[in-house]
């Protein structure tokens, strides 16, 4: 079963509808028993980093997500969800993340308008399967005030906002999109479609 984790943030219906539009059936849940059995996990998110981590902790999901990550289950973090995949955020007075990927989350410097809100172009740094249905220069929709301040090998695409904004990352079975694919028209659906195919591939190869 493909899961969207519901931990009380934002509007998950539009994400669910976008998944269904590409024939990727998903269930919205926060039940640990269901998530433990998930074949793929989407971790959405808007709002504050620490509050989100507190809620995941309260629901007992932090260890569950970590062990699913370790066992190879595809996990896609969207927006704040992508930031949670990293180790630490300086938001508010600092908060510990899931730590599935090395790196930190910082506030976008005030030399540009914050939040970074609107449609920005994808620039590719790699050619990976996740990008197979989109083109360099396609626009996606961002709304965020914090960003991954430095990336390593996991960076697949970034957007130029005066500051380099990591947009799509992948580290083995861990995926992240800083923008909202469910709000990014055709391009967003194409990225979700590629993620869906990666999930199918991963489940075949891990069996």
């Amino acid at each position, binding site marked *: 079963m493909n899961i969207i984790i519901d931990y009380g943030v934002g509007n998950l219906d539009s994400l669910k509808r*976008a998944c269904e539009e590409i024939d990727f059936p998903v269930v919205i849940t926060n039940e640990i028993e269901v998530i433990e059995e998930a074949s793929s996990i989407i971790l959405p998110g808007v709002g504050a980093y620490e509050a989100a981590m507190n809620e995941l902790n309260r629901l007992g999901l932090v260890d569950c997500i970590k062990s699913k990550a370790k066992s190879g289950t595809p996990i896609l973090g969207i927006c704040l969800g992508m930031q949670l995949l990293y180790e630490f955020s300086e938001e508010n007075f600092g908060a510990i993340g899931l730590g599935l990927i090395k790196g930190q989350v910082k506030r976008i410097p005030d030399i540009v308008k914050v939040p970074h*809100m609107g449609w920005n172009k994808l620039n590719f740094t790699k050619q990976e399967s996740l990008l197979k249905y989109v083109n360099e220069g396609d626009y996606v929709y961002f709304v965020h005030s914090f960003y991954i301040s430095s990336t390593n090998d996991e960076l697949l695409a970034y957007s130029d906002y005066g500051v380099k904004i990591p947009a799509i990352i992948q580290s083995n079975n861990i995926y992240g999109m800083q923008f909202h694919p469910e709000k990014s028209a*055709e391009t967003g659906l194409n990225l979700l479609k590629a993620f869906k195919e990666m999930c199918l591939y991963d489940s075949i190869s891990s069996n």
Partner: protein
Amino acid sequence: MLARRIIPCLDVRNGRVVKGKQFSSIQDVDSPTKLGKYYSDNGADELVFYDITASNEERDISLKFVSEVAKELRIPFSVGGGVRSIDDFTKLLRNGADKVSINSAAILNPNLIKEASDRFGSQCVVLSIDAKLNKDGNYKVCINGGRKETEWEAIDWAKKGVELGAGEIVLNSIDEDGMKRGFDIRLLQKITNAINVPVIASGGAGKVEHFYDAIEYANVDGVLAASVFHFGEIKISELKDYLNEKNIPVRL
């Protein structure tokens, strides 16, 4: 580079999209669901839904329309009109809004901006400002659908709103609303120079050149219009082609 946003606005009353001039003389246009889907599929970068009925007893009915429109969209959705409380924010966000805009209620209770941005993040708190040039040559903020002038200067109120946590300003010129003479560039310049969050120009679009002027000369992040889009006088795709030729970054 961020694309400049083209944003159609649905003013919805009793479940129908309507359009007026200088905030009155209103005529019926179409169903919000149908128009919303059309815009989402045809190049709009965002959709704004203003509930202009917004009396208490009708608000739940409006929520139903918000939710129906949200289902049709693959682009961001901003909703406003009569928002007075954190509870209103919660209801709209649960029914599919990505952003909520507040106007009169924020003037009466500025702390609502702070509470909402602390709770939901400033990215979903839009401060909508209705400004009118008074006889002394100052832009004053009006509330209650433009009917009541307040003590606030538009520029001071915009700054205050951002300080309290508003993540975006939509600036409506009451004088230019529906007049099709172009956006109020002078007003917009004052605001974009004063604050560091996105500013959306609203009120006055009549032809493609007006959109260019607002972006080029007032440096706005987005331009909002209603009737020129609803009545097919300007097609979003043609507008974007025009802006693209003039080297304005747009999502084609």
